[in-house]
């Protein structure tokens, strides 16, 4: 008992060990639960935003230009070459990493 000056040794006594008793599992469950909650909130926010946008965007007016761009891209040779190059480079990267 430190009625001696050896107080440093006494203070250096390690903290009492605390048994896990399911603590780590509770933390993991809590993390999973909170992440699901956050994901749900994000989804709801996304749908709400989409609904607001849909209310104000003149979808009928945009349909024509979108169709035109999609068709022109589909028929474009440079675009097809760019897509092929992308696919090819990705395949090579995967092959090299394997």
């Amino acid at each position, binding site marked *: 008992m430190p*009625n001696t000056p050896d*107080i440093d040794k006494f203070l*250096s006594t390690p903290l009492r060990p605390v048994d896990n008793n399911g*603590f*780590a599992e509770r*933390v*993991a469950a809590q993390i999973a639960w909170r992440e699901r909650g956050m994901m749900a909130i994000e989804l709801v926010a996304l749908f709400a935003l989409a609904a607001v946008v849909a209310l104000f965007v003149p979808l009928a007016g945009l349909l024509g230009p979108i169709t035109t761009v999609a068709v022109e891209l589909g028929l474009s040779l440079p675009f097809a070459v760019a897509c092929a190059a992308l696919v090819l480079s990705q395949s090579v990267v995967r092959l090299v990493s394997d």
Partner: protein
Amino acid sequence: MAGDMFVDLAAAGDRAAFEALVRQHQSLLRGFLRRLTRGDHALADDLAQETFFEAWRKIGQFRGEGPFRGWLTRIAWRRYLMAARRRKLEPLDTGEEPAAPPSTSDLRLDLEKAMALLTLPQRAALTICFALDYTHEEAADILGMPLGTLKSHVARGRENMRKLLDGS
């Protein structure tokens, strides 16, 4: 080292690896928080859970410049400060001694009881430097205080502990 591997895996989103880290560090962290909360196990465990949740969200920011347990301890300390401020648990930054010196008769054999009578900075500084075995520099970094201030808390805390435990 296995701990480092778990940190890398957890940073990549592996929840099982993070659970392994929790299992590895929970005793130290909960022990530290129990000391800070003066033995309030329920509050300490709530804060430990919050600490690990924050660690999970921010583990990508851990740069490995110091030990992982030091990074966790720093989060736990900040969590305790926030809780203490919100719940008005105790004065946070006072350098003053406890207002009414307690009777020392029942403290002689109990480190925890004596420790609970110290001010918060002294309690934290002594625990981190002695029980958790950090250097003064590391402790100052964890507690977010200048090195000189940390050393002063350690010196005054040690002196107060001596008085309490000797009954002088």
